[in-house]
């Protein structure tokens, strides 16, 4: 009979207490792992999403909202920018690039960004990492669409599929479907581990056309009897300035290799802020600001996780310590059979370590599913695409810490077993 079998059998004799303490360790390990994994993944995802843009211009209420909407697709921006404003902005400085974006449409709840092909050729979703196409190519003419990796996977989109976009409805409900114009899927992007993965991308002109048609129909309905009329048809050359609206502009200043663009960026930021009709954001700064806001809460959660882990160790200590009252005869018997005091000490300590090990394994499994669920919720609610995986070092530190604490919790019960009087505990009870 191996010692491991002996320990497992001893734990099974106190199955309820063993399971509860193991579960406590598991839950505390899972809480810590989920918090740590979400923190590091969210930070990484936030920093990646802003990519290589220096400034973001929109008509949102604040710079933070501009970044959350324009980069992380939190909500459709409420206020548009006029095309003339974009043209002025573009001509106001020799930007390296200046890319217009228009958000508002959706496909089955996923955001659709209308933009130009520069979005694929100049903007990088992560610094130094250009877009990669898993399939197909960028849109080249009207009513073509490119799907982000997550969107393609979620909706089973493939090259050649024809889809109808919906006006609004980022929550996945309601909205008006642009059923008259189907978009052909011409490209599927490779994953970028950023919020862009769950979006779809199309050209600005198509978006302007379908919204111009919607406007023309509304105007027509206001003046003419509804019966028997055809849908309004709008071509690119029919578009007016009123139709050409965008919701944001991504900007990058010209840079030279090895030169820091921070000072120039700050200068342009200050210059643009003087225009009160627009909101200017430095995305990287806004992400830092967001982390500063949530940083204290984050630390509090980590501290709570550690406190739960410590309390689970106390639970192990109490469970084993209390069990020693019932186990003095068992200890005395194995001592009579030839086990040394140190052997008995190590057996109790091993029981404690095994609870820590089993709890850590359970915690790993629980953390995996909880992190997946949390990642899904973040993607659906906030638009943040995260990969909730942990570095091996963090995993080892948390699980190793849990096992070490469990061992520590076993020292007092083990010492009690060590000191158990053999002769006194072999006598008949009563």
């Amino acid at each position: 009979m191996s010692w491991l079998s002996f320990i497992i059998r001893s734990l099974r004799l106190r199955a309820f207490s063993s399971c509860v303490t193991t579960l406590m360790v598991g839950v505390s390990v899972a809480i810590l792992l989920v918090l740590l994994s979400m923190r590091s993944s969210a930070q990484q995802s936030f920093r990646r999403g802003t990519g290589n843009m220096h400034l973001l211009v929109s008509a949102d209420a604040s710079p933070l909202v501009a970044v959350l909407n324009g980069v992380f697709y939190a909500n459709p921006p409420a206020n548009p920018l006029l095309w003339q404003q974009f043209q002025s902005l573009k001509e106001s400085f020799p930007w390296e690039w200046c890319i217009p974006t228009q958000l508002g449409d959706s496909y089955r709840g996923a955001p659709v960004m209308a933009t130009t092909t520069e979005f694929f050729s100049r903007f990088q979703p992560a610094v130094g990492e250009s877009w990669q196409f898993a399939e197909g190519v960028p849109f080249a003419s009207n009513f073509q669409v490119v799907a982000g990796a997550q969107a393609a996977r979620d909706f089973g989109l493939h090259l050649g599929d024809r889809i109808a976009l919906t006006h609004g409805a980022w929550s996945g409900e309601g909205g008006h479907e642009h059923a008259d114009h189907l978009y052909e899927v011409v490209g599927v992007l490779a994953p970028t581990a950023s919020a862009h993965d769950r979006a779809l991308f199309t050209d600005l002109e198509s978006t302007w056309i379908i919204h111009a048609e919607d406007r023309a129909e509304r105007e027509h309905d206001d003046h003419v009897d509804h019966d028997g009329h055809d849908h309004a048809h709008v071509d690119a050359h029919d578009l007016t300035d009123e139709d050409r609206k965008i919701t944001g502009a991504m900007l990058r200043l010209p840079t030279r290799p090895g030169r820091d663009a921070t000072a120039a960026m700050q200068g342009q930021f200050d210059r643009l802020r003087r225009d009160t009709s627009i909101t200017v954001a430095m995305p990287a700064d806004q992400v830092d600001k967001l982390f500063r806001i949530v940083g204290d809460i984050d630390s509090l959660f980590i501290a709570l996780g550690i406190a739960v882990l410590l309390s689970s160790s106390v639970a192990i200590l109490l469970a084993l310590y209390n069990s020693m009252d019932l186990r003095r005869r068992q200890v005395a018997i194995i001592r009579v059979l030839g086990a040394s005091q140190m052997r008995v000490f190590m057996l109790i300590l091993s029981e404690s370590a095994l609870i820590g090990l089993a709890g850590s394994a359970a915690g790993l499994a629980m953390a995996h599913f909880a992190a997946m669920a949390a990642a899904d919720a973040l993607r659906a609610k906030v638009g943040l695409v995260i990969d909730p995986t942990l570095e091996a070092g963090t995993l080892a530190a948390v699980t190793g810490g849990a096992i070490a604490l469990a061992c520590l919790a076993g020292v007092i019960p083990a010492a009690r077993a060590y000191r158990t009087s053999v002769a006194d505990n072999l006598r008949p009870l009563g």
Partner: protein
Amino acid sequence: MPNPTVLDTSGVTFCYANGPSMAFADVALAPGEQALLLGSSGTGKSTFLNLVAGLESPHSGSIAVNGVQIGTLRGAARDRFRGRSIGMVFQVFNLLQGFSALENILLALRFSGLPRSEHRERAQSLLTKLGVERVDALVDRLSVGQQQRVAVARAVAARPTLVLADEPTASLDPVNRDAALTLLQETCRASGAALLCASHDPEVARRFTTCIAAARQGNSQ
């Protein structure tokens, strides 16, 4: 030259904290010999067996098992020596509850020094020989008679040279008492182990040719 005695004690005294001092009779047992340690309750029979097993240390005197002064062994060495050389049977059997009959024997064999590859076969054959029918059943689900057989099997499992039995029949009726004593004595005889049995029961004394009064006042043989 092999040691002619399995157990040799002389001048052993012991005193519990705040208790009276006890002086024990000298005992010598040859290999395979069976003796009864007789005395009424409180004369220190169990204490003497614990001293012989190395579970307590005498205040004075010497206790040699197989020629080894057990008092000179310390800690783990004493425990290891006990596991290999001495088997014990108790009034309440003291089997490990929640473990099967087979596992109780296998655990004793862990300390026997016998090769691990032989443990399972030896445990199975011992239990079969002693008439334990459900070797995989938990001991708490066995009848009292079956538990007694498991306890005896465990005492001789490690091939000890000395078996100590502490009131092994005290809780049994006369019929079962005789059966239990027969089992214990025959098993020890078959395994070649010497047997020192402590009892207050004069009926048990009839089963032994050698009876020793536990207290030092005198021996009757």
